[in-house]
């Protein structure tokens, strides 16, 4: 679908990437259309992160205020994380940096969006928290569903075969922990998904790539925080 193309609504409601003019429905972004109850939506080929309530995202602390932190989540604006949305809500105002400092990475959930574009995030939720060790990799946010795969199959394959632990943020940031070689292989997998995400047989090609580049043992640690978080998202 090109922006401006008319989409048959098939009796469904307009979802992401669509707009209604008169009685017709049109695409507002470049991508392909999906019709799944109750929405018709466009899955974009590319694009920046557009926050939705309930998204799990990787944020980086940019500023510490008296009662909240400001996180960069790759959205148009910094997202406030209020102390009441953390397990440390008893912290006296002005002493927040004993928990999170500028430059710290955290896994948070998008809690509320308001019409002005403010994105409130929370640290309360299963698997959410400060990310220590490892590093952060990037893929296009439009590719995140491919990275996770059906029921989490893709990300499970990657973590199992590379012996890494992963937390996938819907904003295209992926936290990876493991040895240098494992992280490099995850990075290569992500690049492959980014370049070839549109073509069928991606899982086989990723498997093939992992066979080619390393041992095939399944002894990697069970992916912890990410999968629990992810599971919720995948079923949604």
């Amino acid at each position: 679908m090109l922006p401006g193309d008319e989409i048959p609504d098939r009796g469904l409601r307009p979802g992401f990437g669509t707009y209604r003019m008169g009685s017709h429905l049109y695409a507002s972004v470049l991508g392909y259309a999906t019709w799944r109850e109750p929405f018709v939506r466009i899955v974009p080929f590319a694009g920046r992160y557009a926050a939705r309530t309930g998204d799990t995202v990787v944020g980086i602390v940019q500023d510490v205020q008296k009662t909240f932190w400001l996180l960069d989540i790759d959205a148009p604006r910094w997202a406030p994380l209020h102390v009441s949305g953390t397990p440390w809500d008893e912290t006296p105002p002005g002493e927040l940096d004993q928990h999170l400092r500028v430059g710290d990475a955290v896994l948070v959930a998008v809690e509320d969006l308001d019409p002005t574009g403010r994105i409130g995030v929370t640290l309360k939720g299963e698997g959410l928290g400060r990310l220590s060790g490892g590093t952060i990799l990037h893929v296009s946010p439009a590719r995140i569903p491919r990275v996770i795969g059906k029921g989490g199959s893709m990300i499970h394959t990657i973590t199992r075969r590379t012996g890494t632990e992963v937390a996938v943020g819907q904003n295209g940031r992926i936290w990876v922990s493991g040895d240098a070689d494992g992280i490099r292989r995850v990075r290569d997998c992500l690049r492959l998904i980014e370049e070839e995400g549109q073509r069928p047989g991606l899982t086989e090609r990723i498997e093939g790539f992992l066979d080619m580049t390393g041992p095939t043992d399944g002894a990697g640690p069970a992916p912890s925080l990410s999968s629990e978080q992810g599971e919720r998202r995948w079923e949604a």
Partner: protein
Amino acid sequence: MSEIVAAEIQTTHIVDLARSGQRIDGRGLDDWRPVTVEPGFVKSADGSALVHVGASAVLCGVKLETGKPFGDTPNAGVLTTNAELIPLSSPTFEPGPPQPTAIELSRVVDRSIRAAETIDLTKLCVAPAEKCWICYVDLHVLDHGGNLIDTAQLAALAALTHATVPAKRFGVGEADYPLEVAHFPIECSFVRLGDRIVVDPTFEEEAAGQGRITVATDEVGNVVAMQKGKVGAFSPDEVVETVERAFQHGDRLRAIARAA
């Protein structure tokens, strides 16, 4: 959002990798990303080049006009370099007056071209104290993937090398002729990651870097310009090391820029 703080875990990861001789994109510490040079990219300019270094892209346009020489250099033409950081190219670039990054970029590129006497400015003089050529070198950063200085300088050099002096259009000659380029300076930038020094840093490596040093070398073996940036220091031995490495990379890149 003028500046975004990088995640500490990412910085630590990059520095740890460098310690074991590795980089996030699989390069060695002394490897450049792929470089492509496309001269003549903008047909309406007197000279132009589009240069890609990895994910970075800089388009350079050269324009020549006649004007009045400066009072203190009546026998020389004028060279002026300007850099534009297009907001589309990086989340940290905003529209508006030039930011310090843009000023540094244009100054450092200008310095290497001027100091290497890439163009003999006296040949741009038409009539002493009356009329001369003014050579505008305009740099447009299209994509910021790190190491903008070197990318922009390669673009400037390639654009100048393929530039034409529009003498006929300005009525100061019978025919247009190629701009004479006398020397070929190449800039080469390094950043410190822990106790290692890596060449051609990416965006992430620049953010993690503890000090940046740029060395411009020419084809006859001169160091023509240098620039030290970011917070962090280099020992005298390390500076000598970067100069030696800059000469090696300079020779290779010069061949790419001239072959294009």
